[in-house]
């Protein structure tokens, strides 16, 4: 399974964010996106997720489900946590499990050490805990491609360890991770794509 981006260009609000961008990520590998804010890291992630159409260029996905778009086989964890404060932690995960076609709630809760909070309403959670709940979606439903937009923001040390463990098991199982991050996610031999070099 390999995800390739050929000659990608992105325009947002009439401004060209980046152009002639190429990358390849093979199964079991991670791609770290570096660069200043507004360089287009988030836009690339949203482009892979299928939310934005590239102005030019295209994605090629070898392996994986041929009839599904890359976005349909990907998890996106962005700044917004997609949580409903009125629902409890467990109910939020139950919804996503049901909506994304089945998933193991206990495993997801355990993966981010949220079991103790299962019965509490998500509105009571702190920012870090909400971030962990959003990341728990990764462990909930197995999907090949993980698109992470600064996942470690707001996480305490213990949770960062949990996140790294999660990412490692995903890579060992042949998954792909594309992450925009300023902090070190501790992923061994990850390729890097620096947006500051791409003078658009």
């Amino acid at each position, binding site marked *: 399974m390999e995800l390739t981006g050929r000659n990608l260009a992105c325009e947002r609000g009439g401004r060209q964010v980046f152009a002639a961008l190429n990358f390849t990520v093979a199964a079991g590998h991670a791609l770290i996106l570096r660069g200043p804010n507004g360089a287009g890291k988030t836009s690339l992630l949203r482009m892979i997720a299928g939310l934005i159409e590239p102005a030019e260029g295209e994605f090629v996905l070898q392996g994986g489900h041929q009839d599904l778009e890359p976005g349909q086989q990907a998890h996106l964890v962005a700044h917004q946590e997609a949580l409903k*404060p009125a629902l409890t932690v467990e109910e939020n995960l139950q919804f996503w499990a049901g909506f994304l076609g089945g998933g193991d709630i206990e495993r997801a809760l355990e993966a981010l050490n949220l079991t103790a*909070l299962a019965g509490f309403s998500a509105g*009571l959670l702190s920012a870090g805990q909400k971030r962990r709940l959003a990341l728990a979606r990764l462990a909930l439903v197995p999907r090949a491609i993980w698109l992470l937009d600064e996942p470690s923001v707001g996480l305490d040390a213990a949770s960062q360890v949990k996140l790294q463990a999660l990412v490692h098991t995903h890579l060992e199982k042949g998954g792909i991770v594309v992450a925009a991050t300023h902090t070190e996610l501790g992923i061994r031999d990850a390729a890097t794509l620096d947006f500051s070099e791409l003078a658009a």
Partner: protein
Amino acid sequence: MQKFANPTRFLRLQSAIQPWVVAATIVLFAAGLYSGLVMAPPDYQQGETVRIMFVHVPAAWLALMIYSIMALSSAVAIVFRHPLADLAAKTAAPIGAAFTFLALATGSLWGKPMWGAWWVWDAGLTSMFVLFLLYLGYIAVWQAIEDPARGALIARIVALVGFINIPIIKFSVDWWNSLHQPASVFRIDGPAIHSSILIPLLIMATAYTMLFLALHLSAMRAEINARKLRQMELAHVGSS
């Protein structure tokens, strides 16, 4: 943060007087119903239907009284920053809305034999209807705002603005009513009420007030516990 000045003092006071209030309510209701239904003579004009007054008028008085209490406690909350005052207003609203609904329903039942229609837009009932909407609006404000502290600030303003508008609405509805209907046959205060009717009415009114007191005090205790619960949940979540 919503600190509680002295909920314990209030809770102690509440548990002390609650049994007495409940006892008084029961006694007053018994006396009121007995005097109203058995002793009071039927009206020479309306016959037995005049007895509806004993459930309609107290409900109407209470509807107005409770909104005034909500406005008063909102004012206290603003001036003295007393968090319990916000709770008093919040817990009183549903009770007030229920009594307003009762006033409307019994008013309609009382009007039907006389006017032949289930509902007539007469002065009293129309202003009562608008008051009902003020209650719904106030309750909706608490539901719409998740953060209790911010909800309290907005609810105070809504209660006071509503309260200031009650006389204005009453006046304009009365004027509107006199415009379309010469003299409404049915007046709540009506001609000088004979004492045999007045006594049961006053007993029933006091019974309703005591009932409100009993409900309101217990509702406040539940609300204080609910706030405590929310804080403990926050603390529990925060520590794990």
